[in-house]
């Protein structure tokens, strides 16, 4: 397995799902973006999160990742209550996200985008100044891993390119690779195929399926239902901030409420 090393999860996580969202709500003034949302994300497979525009999917993902503060409710990850954790602490626990709008580091090369995702001893002033041999060795291993990942994602020819000079689809790939470098326990994907050409979309899908088969659990917001059908065994449907249903895509297609709210 290259680049992906899902960390072992606690038994509590296995029993209740790796991620548990409990009665989550978030309002913006009078607008209720997320209302009493509860769901579990299992420790394997890709869980889909679908719904019409404005359903509250990205807000929910933002709350899970710690970018948005919930008005009420709790988030439990790997058996630990992380409701009050800042986003960087959640990432340190293995809850890593990608963004709907590309979140690349523009003036870092593709390689640097990848290596910065891995914490090493040289990230403090004293470490960088005094422990050069230690961080050089660590960095060597990280770079070797990044180069393997770039090979796997057919991006080796972009190693030295500034991320700002990539196409929209390539930026998505960089974001996914960067997420993988951070050794996630759960990868949160916010519309990973939005604005990507069909050919690259296919590639991203293939990579996601490979990662799933390698044992990396993911929670993915996606509008392209055929992709959700192929990738996600478990799908949560949201509309107007509420959870409408949970199940397989086949279940949802048979569900009148889901059909009228989203699939029609």
């Amino acid at each position, binding site marked *: 397995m290259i680049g992906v090393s899902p960390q072992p999860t606690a038994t509590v996580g296995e029993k209740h799902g790796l991620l548990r969202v409990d009665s989550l709500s978030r309002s913006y003034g009078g607008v209720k973006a997320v209302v009493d949302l509860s769901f579990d994300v299992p420790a394997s497979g890709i869980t889909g999160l679908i719904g019409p525009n404005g359903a509250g999917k990205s807000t929910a993902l933002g709350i899970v990742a710690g970018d948005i503060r919930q008005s009420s409710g709790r988030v439990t990850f790997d058996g630990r209550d992380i409701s009050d954790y800042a986003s*960087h602490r959640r990432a340190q626990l293995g809850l890593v996200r990608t963004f709907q709008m590309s979140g690349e*580091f523009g003036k*870092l090369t593709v390689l640097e985008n990848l290596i910065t995702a891995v914490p090493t001893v040289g990230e403090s002033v004293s470490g960088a100044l005094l422990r050069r041999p230690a961080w050089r060795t660590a960095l060597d291993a990280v770079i*070797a891993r990044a180069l393997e990942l770039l090979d796997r994602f057919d991006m080796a020819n972009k190693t030295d390119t500034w991320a700002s000079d990539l196409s929209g689809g390539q930026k998505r790939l960089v974001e996914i690779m960067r997420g993988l470098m951070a050794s996630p326990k759960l990868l949160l994907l916010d519309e990973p195929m939005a604005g990507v050409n069909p050919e690259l979309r296919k590639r991203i899908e293939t990579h996601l399926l490979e990662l799933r088969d390698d044992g990396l659990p993911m929670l993915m917001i996606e509008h392209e239902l055929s992709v959700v059908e192929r990738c996600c065994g478990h799908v949560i449907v949201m509309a107007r901030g509420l959870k409408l249903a949970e199940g397989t895509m086949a279940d949802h297609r048979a569900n009148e409420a889901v059909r009228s709210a989203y699939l029609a």
Partner: protein
Amino acid sequence: MNAGFQLYLATLVVYFAVYAIAAMGLSIQYSYAGVVNLAFIVFQAAGAYTAAVLTLGPDTRIAGFQTYILGYELPFPIPLIAAAAVGALLSSVVGVIALKKLRRDYQAMAFLVLSVIATDLVTNLKGLFNGQAGLALIPSPLQNELGLSYGDYHWAYAIYAVVLTALVYGVCRWLGNSPLGVSWRATRDNETSAAALGKNVARVRLSAMAVGGALAGLSGAVLVQFITVWEPNSWLFPETFVLFTSLIVGGLGNSKGVLLGVLAVPILLLQGPSFLPEFGRTGLVDSLEWVIVGLVTLVFLWFRPKGLLPERPRRLDKYRSKGLQALLRPRLNRDVGGPPA
């Protein structure tokens, strides 16, 4: 070359070194970590005052001449180290307050206000550093011990300042290419993504504030021990803009660009008006300095925002090492069908 001109040249070399050390500090804060520290000059001043009060000795020596705190006579290089430490410490304290809660544009405003307040404080608290009149007769390091003539000492000081600059340049390059340097640039480019990858953005920026502050303090000490006087008018907030202009002209994020920018702006451009014949009302020629700084900043931002030496991608070769080669060898061998190493 007459002695006066030689002295002028030595002074220019020292000024170059002082501006270069300060600009490298600001470059770490602004070009690397994206912190718009419009109070940068305050930390240089803090270093200068620290070095001064740690070398002047007690203020009772010449009764009523000047009053200041501490008043030690510490040997070289302790005042220099203390100045850097005070710069770093003060920067960190300010950083904790300014960087944690405020957005980047508000941070810049907070820093600008801080700069103005700091000048007012030092001017009005006369007991601190002798108020508006400032400190004078600040000793230069090892001047008596070396026993050099006035002119030779100037050149010795210039060489010492250049050696310090080279050291600082090396340390900055070292830091820039370390994982910390990559983290600085990552938080600069996209702080939300950096946080999503587990980076404590405030702490990463704070480390840049501390390093930049240390260099600011160091530059202040080098300057004050050369010119031997220091007063609130030496560090008014527009001085920070001279450093920003140097970075913009030289090229943001390029270490050689920082040196080129310093050579171009505070040395060549700002020294230019002093060769002009005096005209108009008194002080007009001096105030042309600020007009030039403003114009040059605008011209570069408009026509060449990347500066004379633009930031370049740090290619894989920059990170290559023997260790990495060894790690990559099996892969390369596999790719060309050779035996694994």
